[in-house]
């Protein structure tokens, strides 16, 4: 029969006959190609050998034949075995053949769909992966809209950011995410129109969460087209919550504003300080000229008075006049000292404190200073003593160090009235140490650094006057010599100021002078 011969040649389909019990009766080339058996190997065998062990255990061959017998025809898609034991994805149609009203056998047509099956499986897996990926993204809301803007899908990020569960939001229009005032402007529709016309729309703006809370969002809407016909299938919408970024940016902006305000304040403060320094410098400078005239007037008056013989009726008055002039000179001396200190302070600020270094004996210096302050100490009820062993020589600026000792002594008398004051000069290797110890009111630990600052004092101005410059100038002088000054103190028990100077300050002199 020609028809049978043609079937025999078909290679893409296994076409063969089974008897009513499922025994293979015929075998074509397609069957050989797909299943690997030669006709002589398989004809006469049961078709059940094409089934996997699981299918055999489940009685699949019998079930298929039963169905074909009952319904006339059965289709099946499942894994089958080749002769070599490998599996292939088979698409099977079994048709019952009848003869005299009885089932005389079956026609079986099998296609090998393994390749298609694998391709489909890969596609399915890749789609599954993409879906899982999108669904599991938490940082972005990623969802699909249909062409009219109704929500088709929902991911974890969308749930996290917007607050809706998939079940409650799918099917809703996406304008639900927009504040009312934006919705009124038909803004959501405009976004879709632009995405439709240009393929993409992006913006940053306010969106609503389910709770009604507003958040700052970055939104990208991409039109999605059917690849086969270019028809619009909908829109992919990706939304990012920028609230934190915006908050961080706002915080940055506020911080930088605060910094510039601080800078401005610091500038103002600096300018105010500069203006004050300039004022002090000019004021001190201006005071010197009339002070000169005053000093010369009083000195010359005293000189003239000295030429008048102190005898006769006016002798008592002249003597008093002489005392008064001496008193006036003392006050001029104080005034001069104050002005010098102000000028020193402004010179230190301008970094132009110059030293004139020469050989100096610290012992001699201390002895002179102690002698100078003996009267003042007595008046204040202080016993002022000096402990010194050697001449303690070094190369220093004598006048500047006199200033330092005078400052420490006058402080000791001022704050330690009624108590003994001790001055010590000690030599320690290459260093000469001057120590001034009082037993006065002392200084709080919190003030011991501050007292060396300009216009600083550890005591209330209501009790103790002064410019608050003495220790500042002293420290600057000691610094310029490459030395150090420090204080240790117990409140109500007294203070000990220690000045340490390297014997030679020659290298520091040049530094100080060249620094202007």
């Amino acid at each position: 029969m020609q028809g049978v011969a043609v079937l025999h040649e078909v290679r893409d389909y296994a076409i063969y006959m089974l008897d009513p019990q499922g025994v293979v009766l015929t075998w074509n080339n397609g069957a050989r190609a797909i299943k690997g058996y030669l006709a002589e190997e398989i004809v006469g065998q049961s078709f059940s050998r094409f089934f996997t062990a699981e299918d055999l255990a489940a009685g699949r061959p019998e079930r298929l034949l039963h169905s074909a017998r009952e319904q006339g025809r059965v289709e099946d898609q499942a894994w089958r075995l080749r002769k070599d034991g490998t599996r292939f994805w088979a698409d099977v149609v079994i048709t019952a053949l009848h003869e005299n009203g009885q089932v005389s056998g079956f026609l079986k047509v099998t296609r090998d769909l393994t390749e298609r099956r694998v391709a489909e499986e890969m596609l399915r897996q890749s789609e599954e992966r993409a879906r899982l990926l999108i669904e599991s993204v938490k940082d972005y809301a990623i969802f699909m809209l249909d062409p009219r803007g109704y929500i088709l899908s929902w991911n974890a990020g969308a749930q996290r950011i917007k607050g809706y569960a998939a079940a409650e939001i799918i099917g809703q229009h996406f304008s639900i995410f927009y504040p009312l005032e934006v919705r009124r402007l038909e803004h959501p529709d405009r976004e879709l129109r632009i995405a439709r016309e240009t393929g993409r729309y992006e913006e940053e703006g306010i969106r609503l969460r389910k709770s009604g809370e507003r958040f700052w969002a970055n939104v990208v809407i991409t039109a999605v087209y059917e690849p086969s016909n270019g028809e619009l299938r909908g829109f992919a919408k990706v939304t990012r919550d920028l609230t934190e970024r915006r908050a961080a940016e706002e915080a940055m902006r506020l911080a930088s504003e605060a910094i510039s305000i601080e800078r401005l304040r610091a500038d103002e403060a600096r300018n105010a300080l500069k203006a004050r320094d300039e004022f002090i410098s000019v004021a001190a400078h201006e005071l010197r000229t009339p002070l000169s005239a005053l000093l010369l007037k009083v000195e010359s008056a005293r000189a003239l008075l000295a030429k008048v013989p102190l005898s006769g009726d006016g002798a008592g008055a002249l003597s008093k006049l002489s005392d008064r002039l001496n008193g006036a000179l003392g006050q001029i001396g104080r005034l001069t000292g104050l002005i010098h200190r102000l000028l020193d302070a402004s010179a230190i600020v301008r970094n132009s404190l110059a030293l004139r270094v020469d050989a100096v004996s610290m012992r001699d210096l201390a002895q002179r200073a102690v002698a100078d302050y003996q009267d003042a100490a007595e008046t204040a009820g202080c016993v002022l003593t000096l402990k010194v062993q050697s001449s303690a020589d070094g190369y220093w600026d004598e006048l500047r160090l006199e200033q330092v000792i005078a400052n420490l002594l006058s402080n000791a008398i001022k704050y330690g009235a009624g108590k003994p004051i001790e001055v010590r000069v000690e030599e320690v290797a290459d260093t000469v140490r001057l120590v001034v110890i009082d037993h006065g009111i002392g200084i709080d630990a919190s003030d011991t650094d501050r007292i060396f600052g300009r216009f600083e004092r550890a005591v209330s101005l209501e009790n103790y006057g002064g410019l608050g410059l003495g220790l500042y100038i002293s420290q600057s002088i000691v610094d310029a010599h490459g030395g150090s000054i420090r204080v240790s103190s117990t409140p109500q028990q007294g203070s000990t100021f220690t000045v340490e100077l390297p014997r030679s300050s020659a290298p520091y002199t040049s530094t100080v002078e060249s620094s202007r």
Partner: protein
Amino acid sequence: MIQSLCGAFVMVIDDDDDLRETIMEVLQDNAHRVVGACNGQEALDLLHGAKRLPCVILLDLMMPVMNGRQFRVALMNDPELSDIPVVILSAHANIDEVLDDLSVDAKLSKPVEIAPLLALVNQHCSEAEAKEQALTL
């Protein structure tokens, strides 16, 4: 005024009337002849018309019209006047800083005390007199 002077004299240049007059007073008390000028230009004019030159000039720095520095430079550039000793009187805290490289014979910082002022003036006047005597001999 200067023309009438025949002995050694001291020139005081300061724009502050009180101080200038007080210094002149003190010097006069101590038997010096004095001439005052209230700025460098006035002093230069006086010197250019003078028959005799001062034995020393006491010079303030900060003055209107011509300040002490300008006056000192003008003096140095005039061969007739460049030998006159100049003593600076300054109210600056640090005269050296202000003078920089300006050449002067001595400097006194304000407030000026009598003793060093007289010592300097006496020294320069006796030197000038000694020089004069040597010339006339």
